[in-house]
């Protein structure tokens, strides 16, 4: 394992320290316990959005803290959910009197820790609701599993719920739109290489030279199947078809699409994927005003990508195109508002 680190046990702490030094006037960084907030927190009268999860998925979630998206992000250890004391401290820091919405990716650890934090905050009289993101179609949603995983579609939930909260929506309204996004976004990913958790010191799994893992999770968890490597265009078919089928999209519907890098894939390749996805959507007569391309929800240095598709209606489109100022949400999205 070769990594740009000082100490495998201090990676999250050191990175948060760097974040504080790099963006002193934009973000407030707390180390003990670890959380990051907008520097203007708490925003009085605004519903506060708190998310979090294991580190190693950057820019998620810290990169989406800012006006129009999250009020706070709670980074756990690498691939490990944050703890209730962190989440509670972040809740205190951003609660502006209008309630707090937790955006939680559907993993058992995240669910349990956010649940405990919600119980603690409620006991103090803070109104907290939570929404579970479960967009990964690689995992069957059944009573025999923990349910579908939350992956890159989380970005759409944070963006749209954030815009709703910024526009003055009540906690119930913000929660409702977040759930609407969850109901209308699906994703699927694939990996070309593994990732190495710094504290583990070795790759989480191994893939042969000519192999890829289809349906990979964002922690290197196995997905649907391990198959021979294909071309980018064929891979887009493999990823996008189940997403479109699961959403039950009809010709003529409008969607937002995200080609997400897993951390170790060059943008050059992600744009090859975006081209293939755009052609596939056009063949299906699905209207995509734009495709987001880049590293949004990563898995350390894993090579690979995921495709997310969100079914749009007027409300979701309006909120998606609303301005947001964060480290990682692209500003061209709201600038392209007129053109779409």
């Amino acid at each position, binding site marked *: 394992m070769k990594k740009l680190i000082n100490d495998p*046990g201090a990676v999250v702490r050191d990175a948060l320290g760097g974040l504080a030094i790099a963006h002193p006037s934009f973000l407030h960084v707390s180390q003990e*316990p670890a959380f990051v907030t907008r520097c203007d927190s708490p925003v009085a009268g605004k519903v506060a959005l708190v998310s979090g999860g*294991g580190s190693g998925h950057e820019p998620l979630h810290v990169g989406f803290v800012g006006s129009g998206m999250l009020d706070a992000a709670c980074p*756990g*250890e*690498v*691939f*490990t*959910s*944050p*703890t*209730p*004391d962190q989440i509670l401290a972040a809740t205190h820091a951003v609660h502006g009197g209008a309630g707090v919405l937790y955006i939680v990716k559907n*993993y*058992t*650890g995240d669910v*349990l*820790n956010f*649940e*405990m934090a919600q119980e603690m905050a409620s006991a103090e009289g803070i109104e907290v609701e939570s929404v579970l993101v479960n967009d990964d179609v690689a*995992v*069957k949603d059944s009573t*025999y*599993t*923990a349910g579908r*995983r939350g992956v890159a579609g989380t970005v759409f939930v944070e963006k749209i719920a954030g815009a709703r909260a910024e526009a003055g929506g009540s906690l119930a309204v913000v929660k409702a739109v977040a759930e609407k996004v969850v109901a209308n976004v699906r994703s699927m990913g694939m990996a070309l290489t593994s990732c190495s*958790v710094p*504290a*583990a010191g070795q790759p*989480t*799994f191994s893939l042969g030279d000519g192999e890829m893992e289809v349906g990979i*999770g964002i*922690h*290197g*968890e*196995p997905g649907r199947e391990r198959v021979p490597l294909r071309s980018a265009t064929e891979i887009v078919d493999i990823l996008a078809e189940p997403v479109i089928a699961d959403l039950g999209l009809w010709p003529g519907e409008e969607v937002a699409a995200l080609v997400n890098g897993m951390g170790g894939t060059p943008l050059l390749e992600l744009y090859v994927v975006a081209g293939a996805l755009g052609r596939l959507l056009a063949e299906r007569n699905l209207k995509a005003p734009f495709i987001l391309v880049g590293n949004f929800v990563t898995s350390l240095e894993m090579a690979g990508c995921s495709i997310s598709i969100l079914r749009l209606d007027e409300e979701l489109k309006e909120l998606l195109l609303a301005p947001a100022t964060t480290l990682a949400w692209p500003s061209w999205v709201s600038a392209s508002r007129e053109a779409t």
Partner: protein
Amino acid sequence: MITSSSIASWLRKAAAEVASHRDELTALDAAIGDADHGINLQRGFAAVLGRMEAGNPAEKTPAALSKEAGMVLVASVGGASGPLYGTFFLRFGGALGDQRELDAATLAAAFRAGLEGIRQRGKAELGEKTMIDAWQPAVEALESAVAAGKPLEVAMWAAAAAAQAGAEATTPMVARKGRASYMGERSRGHQDPGATSTALLVKAAAEAFSERE
């Protein structure tokens, strides 16, 4: 009799067991989860010892020591195992009242309270390839040995053996809870990391509670 010193000894032995099996637990987790179980538990139990040794554990009640350990685990482990093990020690401590010397029946009731706490928090049942598959047989073995009038150390070793057997029995199971459930049939053939660490904790308890002062 079991005292605060016995609880402190349990926590020290548990920390040592977790540390010496760190890589094994992480490897089990890499097979069906996300490769952090040993790392997280080692960090958590190190934090528990750090908090405990900063004070004088013998001066506290067994309940206070156990609850403190639970709070530290909840705040330092993360993942699913943080809330689950943390809840175990919080409920375990909650069942001890302010007694300074614990008999076998009280201990068995505290282990039962811990198990029920894990069940409520994680919503898992026997046979779903989780730590419940080690905790439940351990608690049942402890209860029946205590009910049969066996000495505590005999009952605790029966619990440790049952936890170990329960952990091993998870190997052929298909996971239905937690991250491993995403693998479906592919989770077969791997021992559950949470059940494995539970067997280590119960073994540490058997060792600690067999000590003669």
